[in-house]
């Protein structure tokens, strides 16, 4: 039995060649990030021309060899295969001792460096959200959140805690796919073991109260807190809990979520750091008040994500089941999302820094990709339209979700050096849209202080069923893989009902041609 199966496998999938390739198979293009333990470069595979991301494994600790964090990340990434988890393609090494930019020999004196080769992703969520003038639409936020939760649910089912969920670790490609990345702090966990884990994980602003209070036994709920912070940040337009240190972080959390006590969080007073950080006065929960401008379902979900007591916090699976994702406007198809010029938090930050230093445009060009690399054709939305033009979508269903203000200039922008704000003639922001509803509503987006949340008139009159029918296809409980594109987005009858964005989507891009 086993022998036969093995034989089949050998035919279908040739065994991997042993040993790793050299990093010389790749041409380094530019630095795009700084991981937990190394730099990340964009590179081109010379043989195929494929663009990849190379993550260098820093060998700082000469006493203990190959970093255990890298071992964890490699083990975990080889284990996780999911469309919402970054794919580790291979590992390559550089043959000789390397020198850093200053010409000093690199840390590892034994060999050259080791690099993980990942699929290249154009953006990270923070970099994208920081683009001046860009505002995500509601279906877009739902789409990202849904993918984030799907990927995270998959990790949790496979007993992996990510432990560093934040915008810059959520990569997005130009197909609108979101993938969890940087598993440098991730760990396997098991419910039965009594292993203690470190609480020195997760970037401060996204760190849950239990870790701040010193918990060393924790589970998937830590990641869900981070998801809540990101969710609120997407809707709010800026980070919601930007603490400067642990004490301030906790007090910000308590100001928002109320001060914890034994009734709302049984056991909290026994937490290691509870007495140290115990709030001096009782505060009441203000999530609903602070985020009252969010729509009802968003707020409901956020409340459950930002539960102080980790045991009461919503799981990724239940979050995916929440009304929010099944109420209009539905999450859009990732493919229908606009394509943006590459942006990573690292780059946007760097760009901003550099722009301050050199105002001249010539200098600015250097910071961007020297040339478009053919992989990203100018955006051709027409080609995808059939995907979305369901036969029964009246086109006046919903206004096309276009970010307000100058944001949508990015849509059709060819890759290359960006110009100033005036590169594209303004004034046709709504021109060319065929959607008759668009004219009247368009203005609302540009000026709205918050992304439209679908509780006001923009969506109300759309004549859609309030809830997409939840067909029998909802299978993510069985296995994360079943969140595949086919059943997930309702362009087929079997799905959750028609995606109401469909008809108008096509109209949206008419102006480009």
């Amino acid at each position, binding site marked *: *039995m*086993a*022998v036969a199966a*093995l034989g089949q*496998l050998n035919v279908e*999938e040739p*065994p*991997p060649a*042993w*040993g*790793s390739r050299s990093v010389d198979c790749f041409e380094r293009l530019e630095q795009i990030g700084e991981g937990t333990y190394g730099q990340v470069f964009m590179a081109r595979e010379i043989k195929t021309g494929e663009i990849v991301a190379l993550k260098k494994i820093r060998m700082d600790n*000469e*006493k*203990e*060899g*190959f970093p*255990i964090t890298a*071992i964890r990340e*490699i*083990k975990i990434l*080889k*284990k*996780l*295969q*999911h469309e919402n988890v970054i794919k580790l393609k291979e*590992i390559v*090494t550089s043959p000789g001792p390397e020198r850093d930019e200053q010409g000093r020999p690199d840390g590892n004196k*034994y*060999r050259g460096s*080791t690099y993980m080769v990942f699929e290249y992703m154009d953006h990270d969520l923070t970099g994208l959200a920081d683009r001046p003038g860009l505002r995500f639409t509601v279906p877009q936020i739902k789409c990202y959140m849904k993918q984030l939760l799907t990927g995270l649910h*998959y990790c949790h*089912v*496979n*007993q992996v805690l990510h432990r560093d969920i934040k915008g810059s670790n959520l990569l997005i490609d130009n197909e609108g796919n979101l993938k969890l990345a940087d598993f440098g702090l991730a*760990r*396997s966990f098991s419910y039965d073991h009594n*292993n203690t884990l470190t609480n020195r994980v997760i970037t401060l602003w996204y760190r849950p109260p239990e870790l701040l209070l010193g918990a060393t036994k924790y589970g998937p709920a830590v990641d869900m807190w981070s998801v809540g912070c990101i969710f609120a940040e997407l809707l709010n337009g800026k980070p919601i809990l930007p603490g400067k240190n642990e004490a301030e972080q906790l007090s910000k959390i308590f100001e928002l979520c109320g001060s914890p006590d034994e009734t709302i969080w049984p056991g909290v007073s026994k937490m290691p750091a509870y007495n140290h950080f115990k709030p001096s006065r009782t505060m009441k929960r203000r999530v609903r008040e602070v985020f009252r401008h969010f729509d009802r379902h968003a707020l409901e979900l956020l409340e459950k994500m930002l539960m102080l007591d980790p045991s009461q916090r919503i799981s990724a699976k239940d979050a995916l089941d929440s009304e929010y994702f099944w109420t209009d406007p539905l999450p859009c198809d990732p493919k229908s999302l606009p394509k943006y010029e590459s942006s990573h938090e690292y780059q946007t930050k760097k760009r901003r820094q550099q722009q301050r230093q050199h105002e001249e445009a010539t200098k600015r060009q250097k910071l961007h990709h020297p040339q478009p690399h053919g992989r990203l054709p100018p955006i051709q939305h027409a080609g995808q339209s059939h995907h979305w033009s369901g036969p029964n979508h009246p086109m006046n269903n919903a206004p096309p979700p276009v970010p307000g203000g100058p944001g949508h200039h990015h849509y059709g922008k060819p890759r290359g050096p960006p110009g100033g704000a005036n590169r594209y003639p303004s004034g046709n922001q709504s021109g060319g849209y065929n959607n008759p509803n668009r004219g009247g509503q368009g203005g609302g987006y540009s000026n709205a202080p918050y992304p439209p949340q679908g509780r006001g008139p923009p969506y109300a009159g759309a004549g859609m069923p309030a809830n997409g029918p939840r067909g029998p296809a909802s299978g993510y409980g069985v*296995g*994360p*893989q079943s969140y595949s594109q086919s059943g997930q987005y309702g362009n087929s009858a079997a799905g959750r009902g028609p995606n109401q964005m469909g008809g108008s989507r096509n109209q949206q891009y008419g102006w480009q041609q």
Partner: protein
Amino acid sequence: MAANFWTSSHYKQLLDQEDVDVAQPLDREKGITVEDYKLIKMQMSNYISKLAQHVKVRQRVVATAVTYMRRCYTRKSMTEYDPHLVAPTCLYLASKAEESTVQARLLVFYIKKIYSDEKYRYEVKDILEMEMKILEALNYYLVVFHPYRSLVQFLQDAGMNDINMTHLSWGILNDTYKMDLILVHPPHLIALACIYIASVYREKDNTAWFEELRVDMNVVKNISMEILDFYENQRLVSEERINAAFGKLALKT
């Protein structure tokens, strides 16, 4: 979803017996045979267990380390990858991969304690250098599924989880790491073979239970035969025979 064996890299890398029973060309030049290989690998498995007792790590770490070592020699020569360095390095790497990190200098300390002989002594830097070479030889595939978990589950399911049966089958399972079984067979079948042998040994009739399992009993019996053959041969292995194998390895070419 790949946290189960069937979608893991371990499953995809199960080897045919022919691919495991090899002596690398460089070693063959020294007259080292497949039989010598088996003896050396067995000795090194024992060495790993011994070191592991000193540094106090779980059996799982030992099992993973032995698996790394055996995988390594399906494609690398002992001439280039000295078994006396590969063995402790595999333990070092496995301790990281199994979240029971052991410091390299601690290993070096115990290596010196076990071996008075100069030539088997290695320093921290040797281990760290070999670690990188082994990572590469393993192609960074570090996940290993072991039969221990299925063994426990099977025994429970068969209602044979008395201390007696558990100890015996667990012990047999430990011994299978002195062979290359883990590179060739899925872990649950190895576990079943161990239970099979143990129940024959203890004269427990559980044919009915085995029949209800949806596994190919021929494979289980073949694995059992391999294990029994190993025990049989084991009695014939002399100290001289082992020394002769290591002697060939020490030859300069």
